[in-house]
């Protein structure tokens, strides 16, 4: 691949094959044989690309194999196979023959492009079925057009495919190991560098050491990436010291973009090791090994200059899972920001607005590293930034600070606490005597509602449905039983058994999206679907500040991955250990999703602080009141 080609439109994800594919078989030698259209599956090397250390070997359907993993219809090209087979270079020419010995990410890319080495020119087949970003698609499309128009020009190498195969076959296993290893090595080097410099000049040192690392390793780093990255670093160096933390990583950054991940890692305060055995479909979501982060953060407590201790504490508590639940996290974050604003003083020769904004950005990026932001937190941060930027310029510093502090107080009070009261007031009218209410996991709004209804003297009973690994329902159960409400507790596998006697289902939400989709704890969609089937009304209790104008069609493109270890371990049951050692098994990829999306068809009504609305009216609320709450 030309190094000019900006790696942001990345090489690797184009070769990403999602799901059960036959990876291209590299060990096949011999001339490209257009007739034998399917690579033998027996010797599939475990990594199809640099991103995935593990690939599930597909079942052996020889004849249908290649067409299967190329969602783009290939038949039109097959007549071209024969003539093209002996054509110049790999048409999707990112492969530079001179790079034999230094397998790079490009090589990786072209390797996989080799599966159309039978002559298929289009790299369209390499579109993963769930490409997360359109940028990839565009780049790939560009490649196709390039490939189709200039077969040999791509990287100026007119090689036989045999050579390439050999080279890539040789390069690949090396590549796979070095990728992880080199990443770890880089991290070690960074840690060492940081320890060496100790404090001031940290960032420069880090960056420099990163550069050093990059130049030292012969080319385990992808060549184009490294070169571009190096140049980026150089230009970045100039602004690094002051503004490094200014660039907040996009909250929904796609984590399969290697280059961006590297960049983010440079910037990150929390060093985290990527988890192993990641599921292919969710490569775009961050997943780290949970154990290491805690101790790492603890040790860095006194070195985290830019991060205010209150924010640090909150981030810490996010990491450990002490604070969970949309409202709790949002309130904790806002209170931490409040503390930091109270302690804030404008540095000389800087304006309060800009400096404070950059500080908030810095805190936010730290919090993202501890745990990805929830949508409610995102909205709250937007509000805070709006308030900061709309501060009148003639305010003195102390006035500005008090105004911001009181704004935050008002937000918390109006949008969360009072909103919950209003929601409970509306929802309580929907509970009648003799009702059997079902709820899932633990939602603060639903809990308040049930307690209030009980106080009003309504007679009802509650069925709490819970699920592993979080088992949040247990806390709710304890609190309800403590107040004297009669409860039933069950796990989600029994929900269809229990649903026939339920009269209403009350669920909470992390957010409600513009098309009425409810984004909530994983398992909510299941409960809502079963309730819909039994014609039980499903009522969602959600404050209006959690609404978002985004639209999500499935639970995959935007989600959060939890600790995979929790899936394999059952607390308190040491005898259930069949999944122990999952990290060493290449075929096993545990998945711990935290959220899912419930379609609006399953939702009967959404109860917000603006009243009871049908799910189709969410965009109306966002439109009418989105601006209002931002400006308060």
């Amino acid at each position: 691949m030309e190094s000019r080609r900006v790696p942001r439109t990345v090489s690797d994800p184009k070769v990403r094959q999602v799901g059960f594919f036959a990876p291209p078989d590299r060990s096949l030698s011999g001339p490209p044989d257009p007739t034998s259209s399917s690579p033998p599956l027996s010797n599939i090397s475990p990594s199809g690309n640099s991103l995935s250390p593990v690939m599930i070997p597909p079942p052996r359907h020889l004849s249908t194999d290649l067409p299967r993993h190329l969602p783009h219809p290939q038949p039109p090209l097959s007549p071209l196979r024969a003539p093209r087979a002996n054509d110049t270079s790999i048409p999707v020419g990112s492969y530079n023959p001179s790079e034999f010995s230094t397998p790079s990410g490009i090589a990786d890319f072209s390797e996989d492009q080799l599966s159309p080495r039978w002559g298929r020119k289009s790299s369209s087949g390499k579109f993963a079925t769930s490409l997360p970003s359109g940028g990839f698609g565009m780049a790939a499309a560009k490649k196709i057009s390039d490939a189709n128009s200039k077969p040999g020009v791509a990287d100026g190498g007119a090689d036989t495919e045999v050579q390439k195969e050999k080279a890539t076959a040789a390069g690949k296993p090396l590549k796979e190991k070095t990728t992880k290893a080199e990443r770890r090595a880089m991290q070690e080097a960074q840690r060492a560098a940081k320890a060496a410099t100790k404090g001031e000049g940290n960032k420069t040192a880090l960056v420099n050491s990163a550069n050093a690392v990059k130049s030292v390793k012969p080319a385990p780093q992808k060549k184009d990436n490294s070169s571009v990255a190096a140049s980026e670093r150089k230009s970045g160096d100039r602004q690094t010291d002051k503004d490094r933390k200014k660039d907040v990583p996009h909250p929904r950054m796609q984590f399969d973009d290697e280059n961006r991940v590297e960049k983010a890692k440079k910037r990150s305060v929390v060093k985290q090791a990527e988890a192993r055995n990641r599921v292919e479909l969710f490569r775009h979501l961050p997943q780290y090994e949970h154990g290491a982060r805690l101790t790492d953060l603890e040790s860095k407590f006194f070195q985290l200059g830019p991060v205010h201790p209150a924010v640090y504490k909150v981030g810490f508590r996010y990491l450990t899972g002490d604070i969970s639940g949309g409202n709790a996290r949002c309130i904790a974050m806002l209170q931490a920001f409040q503390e930091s604003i109270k302690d804030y003083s404008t540095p000389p020769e800087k304006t309060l607005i800009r400096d404070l904004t950059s500080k908030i950005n810095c805190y936010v990026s730290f919090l993202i590293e501890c745990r990805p932001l929830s949508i409610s937190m995102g909205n709250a941060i937007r509000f805070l930034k709006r308030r900061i930027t709309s501060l009148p310029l003639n305010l003195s510093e102390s006035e500005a600070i008090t105004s911001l502090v009181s704004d935050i107080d008002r937000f918390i009070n109006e949008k969360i606490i009072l909103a919950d009261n209003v929601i409970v007031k509306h929802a309580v009218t929907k509970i009648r005597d003799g009702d059997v209410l079902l709820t899932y996991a633990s939602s603060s709004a639903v809990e308040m509602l049930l307690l209030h209804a009980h106080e009003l003297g309504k007679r009802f009973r509650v069925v709490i449905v819970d699920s592993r690994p979080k088992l949040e329902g247990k806390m709710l159960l304890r609190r309800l039983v403590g107040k004297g409400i009669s409860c039933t507790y069950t796990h989600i596998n029994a929900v269809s058994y229990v649903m026939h006697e339920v009269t209403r289902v009350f669920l909470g939400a992390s957010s409600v999206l513009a098309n009425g989709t409810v984004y909530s704890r994983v398992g909510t969609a299941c409960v809502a679907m079963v309730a819909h089937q039994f014609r039980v009304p499903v009522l969602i209790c959600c404050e209006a500040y959690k609404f978002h104008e985004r639209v999500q069609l499935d639970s995959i493109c935007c989600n959060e991955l939890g600790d995979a270890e929790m899936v394999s371990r059952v607390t308190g049951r040491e005898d259930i250990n069949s999944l122990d050692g999952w990290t060493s098994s290449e075929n096993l990829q545990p998945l711990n999703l935290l959220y899912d999306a419930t379609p609006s068809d399953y939702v009967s009504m959404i109860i917000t602080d603006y009243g009871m609305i049908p799910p189709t009216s969410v965009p109306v609320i966002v439109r009418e009141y989105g601006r209002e709450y931002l400006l308060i």
Partner: protein
Amino acid sequence: MWYRSASFILDKQEQQRNAAAESRPLSPASTAMAESPSANVSMYYQTRAAHHGVVSSDWLAQAQAAVAGNSDDAAAESNDSGGEEIGKRFSVVDEFNNWRKQPDLAEAVAAIRALASVIRSSQAKTMMELEIELKKASDSLKSWDTTSISLTAGCDLFMRYVTRTSALDREDFGSAKSRLLERAEKFGEISYKARRIIAMLSQDFIFDGCTILVHGFSRVVLEALRTAVENKKLFRVLCTEGRPDRSGLRVSNELAKLDIPVKLLIDSAVAYSMDEVDMVFVGADGVVESGGIINMMGTYQIALVAKAMNKPMYVAAESYKFARLYPLDQKDMVPALRPIDFGVPIPSQVEVETSARDYTPPQYLTLLFTDLGVLSPSVVSDELIQLYL
């Protein structure tokens, strides 16, 4: 018919006795309305029965006089205790009743007109006082019949529409008041003309040779069909009998007068005839926030059959019927009961389902014809949000 159903008369007398016997915790003026709110029979249906029942006008006059007599006595008592407040409240209901006597006028429109007249005749000196007065008048009208959704919705909407104006910020009370009055009159006009607008909007949907199924006696639907005849369209109508108040018979009467070929069905024959129907056309007692409608008992059934057989269902409803209710199922509403006469005596231990209306969820409705335009059911909530919040 009305005079034939002994139970109806007996029930009414019984209520009056009950009402008189009950110790009303409210002020004496409320006894003036003793005949109106009743647990057993919804006043709404009493009114309609009075309008459309075969009732001689002099009987009506006598009944009115009798009622007025009661209320006069009560008023005499109340005038001692109450002040001008009660007098005003009394006059609202009076005004309302005056308006209501016209059979063609919708109840909610009558209420709106009555409330407008409250503003006109108010002697308040400040905006706050005027608003309080309006609120009291509106409450009293609503309590006149707690089961009528359109009445409640109309009053609420009136209050929101009228008071939601920047005119209230003006210091000059006189100009603010006149602005309020202006809006009130405008709202009254809109509501009054709503039927015409709906009738015109629905013309596009009635095509030559179509067969329309009609349920319940809705003056809006009749207006629409009348307009269609004026536009020289040829169509025929199937109308359900509409027990227990036999609304279908009245509808068929009216349609026959317009020379529209009409066929009467018993309620159970709807599914049987749904094949030959092109569209279902009903009115609504109230339109709820989810986009569903509350209408005469039997509407839900017809909607289910129409959906199963892929026939469109159109609802003609004025915009003042949009209510801030959100029923989750059939039992989630304020019950409105009416006695049903089976023609033979029923043993006492047999229970009778006397509910007079049901709720049709929005997924069975195709379109709503309102004076705001032809809407899909999900727009109702949008309108309500914009108006209320």
